[in-house]
């Protein structure tokens, strides 16, 4: 299938050009000649533009623009001539359709290539038996070989290669930005020293040792007659010295080694770019200058330029990261394009660094690392998800393209210059010096490390020194005029890349298994563990303080304080600054998970039954602890965050839940119930709001969803809950009012006429019921007489589930919808002086302690009866997605 596609693609191209040229028949001969010449002559640049547009498209909004532009420029000449041909032709008749291949060729090819590369990935991933043995990157390269072979077969010329422009401008940035954005910062910085040593000293060592050794072998006559000087050897060494981030990520992602080992290899591959860029530039310049002009000054300049390039690049990235964070502070009103800023600014960080000839990779890595925390808390949750996913799509997409094109690039007659000595020696030296370098550096590092790097880890680290597309890109950037053996170098680089990515990649997994390398423990997230980790952190800081040492923990603590005090304040939304504690986030995440399993459970059983069925509900309570109910009374504080997981998950079904309740009530045909359900419906089910159901909007997602509704319901219920909560504290109203209101209410069977405010107060009544249930839990039996209201409550509550209260029939007349009764009582009968007296029992800890008691003292039936509707209610209320906006003010109200 894929073969068909690609072959038709490649096969199409020449014929299509033929047709197009034959169309402009006046100058068919010259035109076609022009075309082909342009094609073959520009083979490098042309294909470059293809892929460039491609990455731009696959990539980013910004990338798209620029790539489109460059594509335009590249093919300009071809375009113009084609257009000229068309324009020059006198139109004799109106063409109904016309064939305009040239019009679309560049973007078309780009898109086709993306498609082809991704289809390769699709085919590879279709069979996990293969990918579990051979890493994906190796397979992609092999697919590249096949595709390249087919192009070769069709064209007899290498049309598409991975050009440096395309690679460095359009394919690499996304991969690195993703790496930076999803970098585990704490892990990275706590191993920063080691990573830097490997990245800087290790890379220099690799470059120097390889260059010198090859030169030595050359002098010794191992390679025959080659026109390569010492400087050129060093240049070659510097371009091939760096471990490649793309290849490393691709391979290590599949073997789950322990996190320290991973971060070492990964961090090294990212940070060594600064060194590579400098070494490459310096030696490139030295080669141009020629050996005679190099003196101490030049060398010192080179060393200085290293610091400028590396630190300048990092600093630039840092600045851009801050910029992104600041921007996301104020993008609340343009949420749709909010995620775009991250990509555009990230890309700009890369380009700016490139423009200033700083290390672009370092820049974009630090940009991602610096902004991740702030944008994740500043942006809307859905935007964060978007950023995450788009980042992955781009990174994974371009990684795929990179590997496929690395394979395709191999099929080119011109670059294959075989020199056994040079190639084999390079392979050998790279392999050996990597081992020597890693072991030596680790030996030194282990003297200073708290947790020494184990021997086996060192082996894997050395073996994981994969070279990749960065080296290839640099090799093709060499100037063929200055360096006579450029093709040999490119060819050798390619072989090294294939060797490391394919062979070492394939053997990596068996090696890891064989050596019993410590794997990443796939541990379950537990709260206690996170809490304990935090305690550990504080403890270590304290111990360092006490023993008077300025160590790791001390520094981190200082940084945290600084960060908290200044950076967070400036870069984070005030609302986001709250509740951002890590432990709390974990708590939230766990609750979300519970909620999800709750929903899954519900769906398995048939959701409605599950929601309504009290036994199920109680089960659930047991299962997830009583936090659900017990914490409830303090809605404002808790529900919003803790249980919002629940609501997110069930966001949609809720209106239907209410509907079902309605139906159920209808079954239990009773007039009062009708009233009840009507109130309920009126409160929770909005009508209206759906008129614009199918409108298309570019700036809002939620038009077709009920989110606005849900949001509003949430806010209203919250408000009313708050009111009722306050009023509940005010104490108990005299019973006589109940009857009064009962009558009133029985009369008032026209719920439709109710104003919004009224329904709100009804609602709060309902809430009250819930509270008082909790309140009276302990003393219920005793105080039953003196608090008739409570009885009414229970009855009222029962109404909603008639099936469970057959014995309550006699009470039917008294069954006032509890919200009606209570709410108005409360709102009218507030007695502030009583507040203090009633307040005490409301403290949550009290409630919690009371919980089991309640279960035991009451008959389960009554308890459930009383509780169930409340629970449903809660579900409804907690419905809206964990909206950060509404809760904070409430919380403040409540607790300040």
């Amino acid at each position: 299938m894929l073969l068909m596609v690609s072959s038709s693609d490649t096969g199409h191209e020449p014929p299509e050009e033929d047709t197009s040229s034959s169309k402009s028949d006046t100058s068919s001969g010259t035109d076609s000649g022009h075309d082909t010449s342009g094609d073959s002559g520009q083979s490098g640049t042309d294909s470059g533009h293809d892929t460039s547009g491609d990455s731009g498209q696959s990539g980013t909004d910004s990338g798209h623009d620029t790539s489109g532009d460059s594509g335009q420029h590249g093919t300009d000449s071809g375009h113009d001539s084609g257009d000229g041909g068309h324009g020059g032709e006198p139109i004799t008749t109106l063409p109904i359709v016309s064939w305009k291949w040239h019009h679309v060729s560049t973007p078309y090819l780009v898109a086709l290539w993306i498609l082809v590369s991704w289809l390769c990935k699709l085919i590879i991933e279709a069979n996990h038996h293969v990918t579990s043995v051979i890493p994906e990157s190796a397979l992609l390269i092999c697919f590249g070989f096949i595709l390249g072979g087919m192009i070769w077969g069709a064209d007899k010329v290498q049309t598409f290669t991975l050009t440096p422009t395309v690679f460095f401008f359009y394919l690499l940035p996304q991969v690195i930005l993703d790496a930076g954005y999803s970098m585990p910062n704490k892990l990275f910085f706590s191993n920063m020293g080691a990573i830097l040593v490997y990245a800087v000293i290790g890379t220099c060592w690799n470059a120097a040792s390889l260059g010198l050794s090859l030169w030595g072998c050359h002098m010794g006559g191992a390679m025959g007659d080659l026109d390569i000087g010492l400087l050129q050897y060093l240049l070659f060494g510097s371009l091939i010295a760096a471990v490649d981030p793309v290849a490393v990520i691709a391979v290590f992602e599949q073997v789950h080694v322990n996190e320290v080992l991973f971060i070492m290899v990964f961090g090294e591959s990212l940070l060594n770019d600064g060194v590579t860029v400098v070494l490459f530039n310096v030696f490139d310049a030295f080669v141009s200058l020629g050996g005679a002009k190099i003196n101490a000054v030049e060398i010192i300049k080179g060393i200085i330029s290293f610091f400028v390039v590396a630190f300048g690049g990092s600093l630039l990235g840092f600045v851009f990261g801050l910029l992104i964070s600041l921007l996301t502070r104020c993008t609340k009103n343009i949420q749709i394009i909010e995620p775009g800023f991250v990509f555009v600014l990230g890309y700009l960080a890369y380009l700016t660094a490139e423009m200033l000839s700083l290390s672009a990779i370092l820049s974009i890595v630090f940009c991602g690392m610096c902004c991740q925390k702030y944008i994740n808390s500043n942006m809307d949750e859905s935007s964060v998800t978007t950023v995450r996913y788009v980042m992955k799509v781009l990174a994974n997409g371009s990684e795929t393209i990179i590997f496929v094109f690395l394979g395709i690039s191999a099929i080119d007659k011109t670059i294959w210059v075989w020199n056994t000595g040079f190639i084999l020696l390079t392979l050998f030296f790279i392999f050996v010096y990597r081992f020597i370098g890693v072991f030596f550096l680790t030996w030194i590092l282990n003297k200073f490390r708290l947790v020494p790097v184990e021997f086996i880890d060192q082996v894997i680290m050395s073996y994981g020194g994969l070279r990749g597309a960065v080296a290839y890109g640099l090799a093709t950037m060499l100037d063929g005029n200055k360096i006579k053996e450029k093709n040999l170098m490119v060819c050798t680089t390619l072989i090294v890349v294939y060797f490391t990515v394919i062979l070492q990649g394939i053997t990596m997994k068996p090696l890891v298994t064989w050596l019993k390398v410590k794997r990443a423990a796939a541990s379950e997230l537990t709260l206690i563990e996170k809490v304990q980790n935090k305690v550990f952190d504080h403890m270590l800081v304290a111990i360092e303080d006490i023993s008077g040492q300025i160590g790791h923990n001390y520094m981190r603590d200082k940084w945290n304080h600084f960060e908290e005090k200044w950076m967070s304040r400036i870069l984070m939304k005030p609302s986001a600054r709250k509740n951002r504690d890590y432990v709390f986030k974990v708590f939230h995440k766990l609750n979300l998970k519970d909620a999800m399993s709750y929903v899954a459970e519900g769906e398995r059983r048939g959701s409605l039954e599950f929601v309504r069925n009290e036994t199920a509900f109680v089960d659930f309570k047991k299962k997830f602890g009583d936090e659900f109910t017990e914490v409830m009374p303090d809605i404002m504080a808790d529900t919003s965050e803790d249980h919002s997981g629940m609501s997110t998950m069930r966001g949609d079904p809720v209106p239907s839940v209410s509907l079902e309740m309605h139906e159920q009530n209808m079954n239990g045909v009773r007039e009062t119930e009708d009233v009840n359900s009507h109130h309920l419906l009126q409160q929770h089910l909005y009508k209206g709001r759906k008129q614009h159901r199918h409108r298309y909007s570019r700036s809002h997602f939620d038009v077709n969803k009920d989110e606005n509704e849900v949001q509003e319901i949430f806010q209203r219920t919250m408000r009313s809950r708050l009111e009722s909560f306050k009023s509940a504290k005010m104490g108990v109203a005299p019973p006589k009012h109940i009857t009064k209101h009962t009558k009133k209410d029985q009369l008032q069977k026209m719920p439709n006429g109710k104003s919004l405010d009224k329904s709100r107060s009804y609602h709060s009544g309902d809430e009250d019921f819930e509270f008082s249930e909790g309140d009276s839990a302990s003393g219920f039996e005793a105080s039953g007489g003196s608090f008739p209201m409570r009885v009414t409550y229970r009855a009222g509550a029962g109404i909603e589930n008639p099936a469970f209260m057959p014995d309550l029939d006699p009470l039917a007349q008294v069954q006032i919808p509890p919200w009606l009764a209570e709410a108005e009582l409360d709102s009218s009968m507030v007695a502030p002086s009583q507040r203090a007296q009633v307040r005490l029992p409301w403290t949550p800890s009290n409630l919690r302690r009371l919980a089991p008691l309640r279960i035991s003292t009451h008959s389960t039936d009554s308890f459930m009866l009383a509780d169930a509707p409340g629970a449903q209610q809660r579900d409804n209320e907690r419905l809206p997605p964990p909206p950060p906006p509404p809760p904070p003010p409430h919380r403040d109200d409540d607790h300040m």
Partner: protein
Amino acid sequence: MGSNSSSMNNIPNAEQLVQETGFSAAHILRLYERFQFLDKDDTGQLRPEDFGAVRELAMNPIGDRIISAFFSPGQETLDFASFVRVLAHFRPADSNRTRDGAQPEPANSSMGKLKFAFQLYDQDRDGKISRAELLQVLRAMLGMQVTEEQLQSIAERAIQEADFDQDDAISFDEFRKSLEKVNIDHKMSIRFLS
């Protein structure tokens, strides 16, 4: 080293401490300097107030707990040997130095470290972390950022996760089990400069 060895003699029971805690002589010496620095009135005993001189400690949310962990129950003062013994908990575990079974378990074994951590919570020393005790720690650590109710539910949940015998408290065994996956050696060690 000459001056060091001479001042080494000033330290009471230095040799024995080296034996017992596994600190090197240089470590002990450095710690002794620190001890003397903290011991403002030169009594050879530290009082809890002396730790107040460490300014950073005041900012540490669980600083006071850690200070009190230095003092064995009922005692108001701390001599140098106890000071070092407590700090020995935080020495990285010796990788290949094997100890005979006869010797008591060293403080820097992961069990010793865990015990120290456990005792930070267990203020009433009843061998259990009750909900209230956990809540206190939580409140100290994240009190500013979350509401009391959220703290309650976090404590609730944390207890539930570790509480295998349903007694609404975490015993040491449960504590140890819940942290099985954590590499205590790494988490509770610092590099002592010598």
